[in-house]
């Protein structure tokens, strides 16, 4: 039922001469896996998704689903969306306002010429899955945003598509609803065992939903990895920054061994993980998450430096400090409702080498 998706060297140029919207993107989504494409707006993630759907025609590259080639402009292969047997959930829900919930969900089955009994059974099951059984005969216009998106989900799964495509399905919902539906979405997709490609610009959504996350920028796939890998071993400065490593310190790589190296920042030296292409004597940027800065460490260890608290921003359940550290300003965050340090305090700060990454600058 659910199939593997292979995207090979996908490229999409909207107008000749312009920068490609999708630039040589390749990845595979295993059968039953959820892959999230994550990136800022304009990074090409939605265009990639729409190429898979057949709604957009790529300039070159191949799209292979379950071993069958669906898109291959070089060979003149371009299956129309209706022949791909894919499910898609749109950002704007795209539920048809002139139909009831039942009519919306039944539509794909009718288009496939299913029997009346099969349609009734399929609709029943799909609505039960998204917990909307009691709403079947309501006009969709009377539903809330979250309910509409559930209708859209039921509609996209009712015909057991090979792959489910989701285009920022939660971005039109308010914050609380978004959290609930986010957890529901993963549970439902996993229960049905669908292969899913999910597009979003929200990193927490990506982390919760995805088995693997692909970070995109300017039409390129920068890193495709598990959430754990992505957060603890980002491939470059952009991925690090995009996933929350907002502190960046400029320095010079001094030496390198086993993926780690010594970085000189002003007169001080610190130990950090090195990006793949960092060689000694090159300028680097060191990225660090504010929540990985340890203030007043209990034990002595590597990378401990004196710092001064410049300002304190108390946020209730966490406190953000601005620190004067290594000749620059660094943000640190401590969780908990107690604010341990005051403005002007001198504290010792530890920067754990495992979560300190250095990348070539530029």
């Amino acid at each position, binding site marked *: 039922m659910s199939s593997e998706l292979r995207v090979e060297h996908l490229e999409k140029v909207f107008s000749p001469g312009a920068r490609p919207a999708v630039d040589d993107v390749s990845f595979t989504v295993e059968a039953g896996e959820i892959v999230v494409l994550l990136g800022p707006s304009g990074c090409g993630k939605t265009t990639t998704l729409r190429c898979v*759907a057949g*709604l957009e025609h790529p300039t070159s590259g191949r799209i292979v689903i379950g071993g069958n080639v669906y898109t291959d402009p070089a060979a003149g292969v371009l299956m*129309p*969306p*209706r*022949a*791909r*047997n*894919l*499910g*898609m959930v*749109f*950002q*704007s829900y*795209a*539920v*048809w*306002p*002139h139909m009831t919930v039942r009519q919306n969900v039944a*539509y*794909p089955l009718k*288009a*496939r010429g299913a029997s009346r009994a099969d349609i009734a059974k399929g609709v029943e099951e799909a609505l039960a899955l998204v917990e909307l059984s009691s709403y079947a005969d309501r006009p969709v*216009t009377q539903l809330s945003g979250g309910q509409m998106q559930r209708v*859209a989900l039921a*509609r*996209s799964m009712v*015909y057991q598509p090979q792959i489910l495509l989701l285009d920022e399905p939660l971005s039109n919902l308010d914050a609380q609803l978004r959290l609930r539906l986010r957890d529901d979405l993963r549970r439902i997709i996993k229960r049905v065992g669908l292969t899913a490609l999910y597009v979003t610009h929200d990193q927490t959504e990506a982390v919760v939903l995805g088995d693997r996350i692909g970070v995109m920028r300017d039409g390129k796939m920068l890193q495709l990895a598990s959430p754990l890998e992505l957060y603890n071993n980002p491939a470059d400065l952009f991925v690090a920054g995009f996933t929350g490593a907002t502190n960046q310190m400029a320095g010079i790589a001094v030496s390198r061994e086993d993926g780690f190296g010594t970085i000189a920042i002003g007169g001080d030296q610190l130990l950090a993980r090195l990006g793949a292409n960092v060689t000694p004597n090159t300028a680097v940027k060191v990225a660090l998450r504010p929540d990985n800065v340890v203030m007043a460490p209990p034990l002595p260890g590597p990378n401990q430096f004196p710092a001064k608290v410049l300002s304190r921003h108390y946020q209730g359940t966490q406190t953000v400090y601005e620190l004067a550290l290594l000749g620059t300003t660094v943000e640190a965050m401590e969780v908990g409702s107690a604010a341990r340090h005051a403005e002007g305090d001198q504290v010792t700060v530890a920067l754990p080498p495992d979560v300190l990454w250095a990348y070539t600058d530029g």
Partner: protein
Amino acid sequence: MDGNRARALLPWAWSGLLIAILAFLVVYPTAMLLIGALTTTNPVVEGYKLSDLSIGNFIDVAMNPNVASALLNSLIACGGGTIVAVAIGLSFAWVVVRTNTPCKALIASAGMLPLFVPPLVAGVAWAILGSPKTGLLNLILAKAGLSIRVDMYSMPGMIFVFGIYYAPYVYMFTAAALRNMDPSLEEAAEISGASATRTMATVTFPLIMPAILSGMLLSFIVMLGIYGIPAVLGSPANINVLTTYIFALTAWSPPKYNTAAAVAVILMIVTGFLVYAQQRIVGSRSYTTVAGKAFRPRSLNLGPWRFMTLGLAIVYLLIVVVLPTLALIVAAFRKFMFIRDIPSIFEMKQYGWQHFTKMLDNPLTVTSIINSMKVGILTAIVGGILAFAIGYTITRTKAPARRTIDVITTIPVAIPGLVIGVAYLWAWIGLPGGIYGTLWILALAFVARFIPDTVKALSTSLLQIHRELEEAAWICGRGTVMTISSIVLPLARPGVVAAMTLLFILSIRELGSSLFLYSSGTMVMAVQLLGYYEGGNIGITAAFSLVQMVLLGVLITFTNWLSTGASTSVARSG
């Protein structure tokens, strides 16, 4: 204490004043029209009497076979015209919004041009092209050795001209609906496995159906109230529609004012019902929902077929814009309409200004132009001030009875211009020493006719001024009047000027209501043009048509320059 009471009464006094003015302009004439329809008294001879008030008089008229045939003709002509308009308007909308046909923007704006042509001028142009004996098209067909002939003096002729000139109404509504439709609604259908035709039938069409219906009803309503086209094309073939029949009744000797009033009431009832239906559709079933989001409409790649759609669009523009304009130009400048053969159309020595000279030799021409300008200015000033007062009261104040004022203001939407003419005739003809026979009756009738559109336009521009701007002036110690004159008026000025220019344009081209209200001393351009046409001089008619078109063209360009969007309101008033 007394000062406080006076202050509390002031809003009531203001609302009372506005209601009194509206009653005078709208309610009183409508009531007199109803009285006329329900009595048999001749107002000119006997004044107004209520003694024989009876629904029987109205039923007698309504049962008259002539009325029935006029009503039937109206329904056939407007129904047929609406079908043609939907066919053209819908395909035009699809081509412009949903395909990659070249020069779309140009096609779209040129396609709106027919809206600015006064119906009478359109009728005249098509009479010149398609009259059965002397029509230019028939001459060309005959010279080309073909045996087919066109006959515009017929029901199909009327339907055709109605259809091509009112297609833009359908286009405006459906193009907007297609443009505002979330493209993912259709993409969802395709992903679901539906073919292109199935998507169109089950998703696209149902979604734009309210817009289609709305455009259909609106064009039907406008056609129903048009006098110029059926007068020019229907009358020679003895086809009477409601509007031409009403006018014929008042031109009878002695004039049948009661019958005319009764038929006018029938026309008003039909229109009122349709307007109600249209408002319901616009209000309830709007599917263009997702707010504030700009969509890039799906554009179908037609491949080489796009040149065919371009060709069709060009053919439409040729038929609707180029051909009639050429016909008017040929007829206006050609010394004799006799055309020996096709090359002789292009012989320059056949052309000259003699029709224009003759037209200007007639003192009535100049009088009618001057009168139209005077009426236009009166209407613009009176209507502009009144509309501003009403608009401000409705949108900006908490004055009592605002709702009532709003409702009375919208009544004229359901009253065709011609019916307003008959109503004003009834309201004033029996009052010696009144405004009948002056330019004022024309101006006031126009103000009443156009007040809904004017107030709507002004309210829109008033709503764009943030309330806090006014509140800030109050806080600074300004009173209401000073606030309006120092803050609201300056900010709303572009809107006010545009609304007044619009009123000016609408009143100088208004024919329907003028027909019943002009007198020898107060001849206006639209009526004078009809006079030339009925006098049988095609050359002068065409010349005067061109003069009016150029005048309107200049004015509309000016208004457009003042405010984009005002031009569509010209269209909405027919």
